[in-house]
């Protein structure tokens, strides 16, 4: 038993452990502080700054797009949407919230229930994220919400930017559209080194996609000091000392502006021509002197503006369901059999290769027998004696069948390629296809079969496997107009800074320069000119506009092979989707051509009635603009009057009848109808082999 004092001494000895514990813990905490504050201090300072400073993106306006006359085509317009931030909204009492929602429901005409549902759904969202209630508020709605806003906590009008196609649906395909980046696309986009954020938009078609990097500017950045609830405390100015150099404010850099080669007046004229007659298809107009695309329309079209602010599912669905494919750019992404427009190339090939001379006359009946088959002319009664000029003006199939016998498919294909078919024109738009120019190799490669000579007879009149895009056809006829030079079509004329300083002016690019004989071009052009001639009974005579000197070629191309039942029916009486496409290529004026056009009018049965008027509207509009003295409305009116006198007074009745003659029954209208048929083909319709025989260009 110890005394108390001894015991105390024993305890006192143990105090060294207690002191040791205090010192050790002091050291431990001290070292930890040294580690956190001295060693890791800068690191934690950065993290604290990131906590405190909220990055606010100041979006850069996207570059604007103008037509060649500086008419604004693509604009950035503000759009207003109603949003509610639940965390703020819920600071109000329950009855305040209820009346607020009722008011909003009345303003927006959305049911209170739907608004509550949207709010409740957002309950699990990150804090202080506004919930979208209604987008695209009208001005009245904005005014009403702004008026009531004081009473409605957490209710806001959010200002966004919508990319607006000033001309509605016109030019939708070339301009393209922007829309929100999908989560899948994001990593791919940022791979290219450009920084996109999750809610950014990106060009997804047309010009917007092709020139994304130039159109898109660089977003500005500023920093706000926020507290842990994300509430703004103050703006962090340029001068305020930020602990970190990389957190500096940056002004947005707007995207570059684009001036196109497109003439909006021509776009409007073309769209009007399609829309008024409820036609669908495509038109491409090119300046044959430099490859500038003057007009480019695919019809029907769609509202690109909607895509930039989130397209309504019902609208999108209707676009997908529409059998006329409004989303498809038919100018570069669809290919059609060129039909008789291909005869231009066939004639050039034959003349250049010496298969015929310009004055060579060929007897042309209603059909031509080759092998065991009869190849029919579109005009059953035949054309009689035909030279190359007449063959083009009246689109004589048998003339070309006979040439085909003497020509090799590879030669023909080579000429087609020299004039731009079978390869992309490389117009700078995404998704262009190349069309098909078949030859021996192609047949072996794709069809695993040998070339049949009979197929040459189909190809030479633009049928069979042969296809071309409208832009290729436009470029082809432009080359005929300018004497053989194939330019790369251009849609962008100039790229400028937002202040209007020119950054780049595109230059004409020659794809290939064809050296055709002078005589070849002369006779071809004569034939194309005569297509508009009443005297020469040209296939496009009904489309001719008095006062406008143009050269052109009609064509039709079948959509489906005909069965025995459908063959004999009149095209117009077919179900629409089985009707032929009408095609037309033309240039004007004859001397120093200024515009070359190709038109496809889908299921219109006829090149002259379906496609040619659209082309002529565009030509008329353009010539009237660039040379109003010669082609303006007064000059054309004078020409009309002259023509009227010529036809009605000087020349009597029968000319009139011709004008009125029904194009679908061309047999009735021609003098040559009486001329003898090809002796090889006594009867055109006797030995039809259904399903194999191509239908010739049933022009008129």
């Amino acid at each position: 038993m110890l005394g108390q004092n001894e015991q105390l001494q024993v305890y006192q000895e143990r105090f060294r452990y207690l002191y040791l514990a205090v010192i050790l813990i002091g050291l431990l905490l001290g070292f930890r502080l040294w580690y956190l504050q001295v060693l890791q201090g800068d690191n934690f300072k950065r993290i604290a700054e990131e906590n405190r400073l909220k990055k606010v993106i100041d979006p850069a306006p996207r570059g604007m797009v103008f037509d060649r006359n500086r008419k604004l085509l693509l604009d950035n317009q503000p759009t207003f949407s109603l949003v509610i931030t639940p965390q703020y909204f819920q600071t109000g009492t329950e009855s305040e919230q209820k009346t607020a929602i009722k008011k909003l429901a009345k303003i927006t005409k959305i049911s209170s229930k739907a608004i509550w549902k949207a709010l409740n759904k957002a309950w699990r969202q990150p804090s202080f994220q506004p919930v979208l209630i209604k987008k695209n508020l009208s001005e009245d709605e904005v005014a009403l919400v702004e008026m009531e806003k004081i009473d409605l906590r957490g209710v806001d009008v959010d200002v966004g930017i919508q990319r607006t196609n000033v001309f509605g649906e016109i030019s939708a395909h070339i301009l393209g559209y922007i829309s929100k980046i999908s989560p899948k696309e994001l990593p791919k986009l940022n791979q290219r080194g450009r920084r996109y954020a999750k809610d950014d938009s990106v060009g997804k078609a047309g010009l917007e996609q092709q020139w994304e990097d130039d159109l898109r500017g660089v977003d500005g950045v500023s920093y706000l000091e926020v507290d842990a609830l994300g509430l703004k405390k103050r703006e962090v100015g340029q001068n305020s000392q930020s602990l970190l150099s990389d957190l500096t404010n940056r002004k947005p850099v707007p995207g570059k502006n684009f001036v196109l080669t497109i003439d909006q007046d021509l776009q409007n004229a073309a769209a009007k021509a399609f829309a008024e007659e409820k036609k669908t298809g495509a038109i491409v107009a090119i300046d044959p002197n430099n490859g500038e695309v003057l007009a480019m329309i695919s019809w029907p079209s769609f509202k690109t503006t909607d895509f930039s602010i989130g397209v309504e599912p019902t609208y999108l669905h209707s676009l997908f369901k529409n059998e006329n494919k409004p989303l498809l750019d038919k100018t570069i992404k669809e290919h059609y059999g060129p039909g008789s427009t291909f005869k231009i190339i066939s004639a050039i090939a034959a003349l250049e290769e010496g298969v015929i001379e310009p004055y060579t006359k060929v007897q042309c009946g209603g059909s031509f027998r080759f092998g065991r088959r009869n190849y029919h002319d579109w005009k059953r009664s035949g054309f009689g004696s035909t030279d190359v000029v007449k063959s083009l003006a009246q689109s004589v199939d048998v003339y070309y069948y006979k040439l085909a016998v003497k020509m090799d498919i590879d030669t023909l294909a080579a000429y087609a390629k020299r004039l731009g078919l079978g390869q992309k024109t490389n117009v700078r738009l995404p998704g262009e296809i190349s069309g098909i120019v078949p030859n021996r190799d192609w047949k072996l490669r794709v069809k695993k079969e040998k070339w049949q000579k009979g197929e040459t007879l189909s190809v030479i009149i633009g049928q069979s496997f042969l296809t071309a895009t409208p832009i290729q056809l436009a470029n082809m006829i432009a080359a005929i107009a300018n004497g053989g030079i194939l330019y790369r079509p251009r849609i962008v004329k100039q790229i400028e800074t937002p202040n209007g300083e020119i950054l780049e002016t595109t230059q004409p690019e020659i794809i290939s320069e064809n050296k055709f004989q002078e005589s070849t071009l002369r006779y071809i052009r004569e034939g194309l000119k005569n297509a508009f001639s009443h005297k020469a009974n040209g296939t496009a005579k009904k489309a001719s506009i008095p006062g406008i000197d143009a050269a052109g070629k009609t064509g039709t191309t079948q959509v489906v092979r005909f069965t025995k039942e459908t063959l004999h029916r009149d095209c117009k009486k077919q179900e629409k989707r089985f009707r032929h496409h009408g095609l037309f290529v033309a240039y004007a004026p004859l001397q120093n051509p200024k515009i070359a056009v190709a038109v496809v009018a889908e299921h219109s049965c006829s090149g002259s009635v379906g496609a040619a008027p659209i082309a002529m509207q565009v030509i008329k509009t353009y010539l009237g603009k660039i040379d109003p003295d010669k082609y303006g409305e007064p000059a054309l009116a004078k020409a009309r009057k002259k023509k009227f006198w010529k036809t009605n007074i000087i020349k009597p009745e029968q000319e009139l009848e011709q004008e009125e003659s029904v194009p679908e029954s061309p047999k009735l209208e021609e003098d040559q109808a009486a001329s003898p048929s090809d002796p090889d083909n006594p009867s055109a319709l006797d030995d039809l082999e259904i399903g194999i025989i191509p239908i010739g260009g049933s022009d008129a």
Partner: protein
Amino acid sequence: MPKMMNEEVRGRQYNLAIIWIMLALTALGIVNLYSATFGIQSEAHYWKMQVLRFGMGAAVAAAIFFVHYRVLERFAYAAYAINILLLIAVLLLGRNISGAKRWIDLGFISLQPSEFMKITTAWALAKYFHDDQQRASYSIRTLFIPTILVLIPTLLVMAQPDLGTALIILATALVLFLLVKVNSKLLAAAVLMAIVLIPVAYKFVLKEYQRQRIVTFLNPYADPKGHGYNSIQSMIAVGSGGVTGKGFKEGTQSQLHFLPEHHTDFIFSVYSEEHGFLGSIVLLGLFVAFLSQCLKIAYSSNDKFGMLFSVGISAIFFFHILINIGMAVGLMPVVGVPLPFMSYGGSFLMACMFAVGILTNIANKKSMF
């Protein structure tokens, strides 16, 4: 020459160093609290309340100082019993604040009896060992009653639930047990028991959120926005203070409320963010000095009751400082334990000053009366 005066007048020397350190800490605490609650709507409320409570605490401490030392000893079990009753009352009548019943409303003040329970437990243990016969070491049998004295308040506090306070009561008792020495058999048994019981307790005694805190402590970044948020934000606050700190009222982590509970549990982080490493070392130094003073008083006390009681109080302060600062710097799991003289909280400040009052009483008793 106040010393001379004292000696001349009363003939004895007071040990008042602990008072000066406490005053320094309290001053820092109030200034820091002013910053921590700056910008809160009722900011004046906090630091003024703290000043008021300091005043009340000072009155209590002064009263204790003048109480006769023997009275302290005799009153030990009574204090313990009253406190136990108060704890039971809390469980029955207490105010429920965010899932815990810790406060009892006494009309003019709402009291947290568990803050005093730490002291009264040490008090009762000191009394028990003082009255017990002199032993070289304690066995499982001789330590039975002290164990019961510890377990009753521990379980009552855990029922609130208040894990931090329960842990401090246990740890304080453990320090006292070790000081009076347990025999090697019991020590070995206790270590073995701990090894077996800790996993069992983890699984069956701890509540889900308490387990989560331990998981979070081991890896706060597993859930940085959720369970790990407090710990991470506190480390960011402390670390971003750097060497010299961001300046008074300039701590972005605390002023912008990234730091949770910044006027109570994470008050050290506020201080550390604004005053940096240098300021933190000064504060840490003050705490070490304070603890040394506590131990010095214990060491120099001339009876067992005074020594054990003051060691118990030292241990309470020690564990509060260790757990609170350890938590702020990410060395301890997030357990709601306040920092003496710094954290906002009336009962705790009063309890601390009460404890200081007892220490000064013990320190000066030998020369009194």
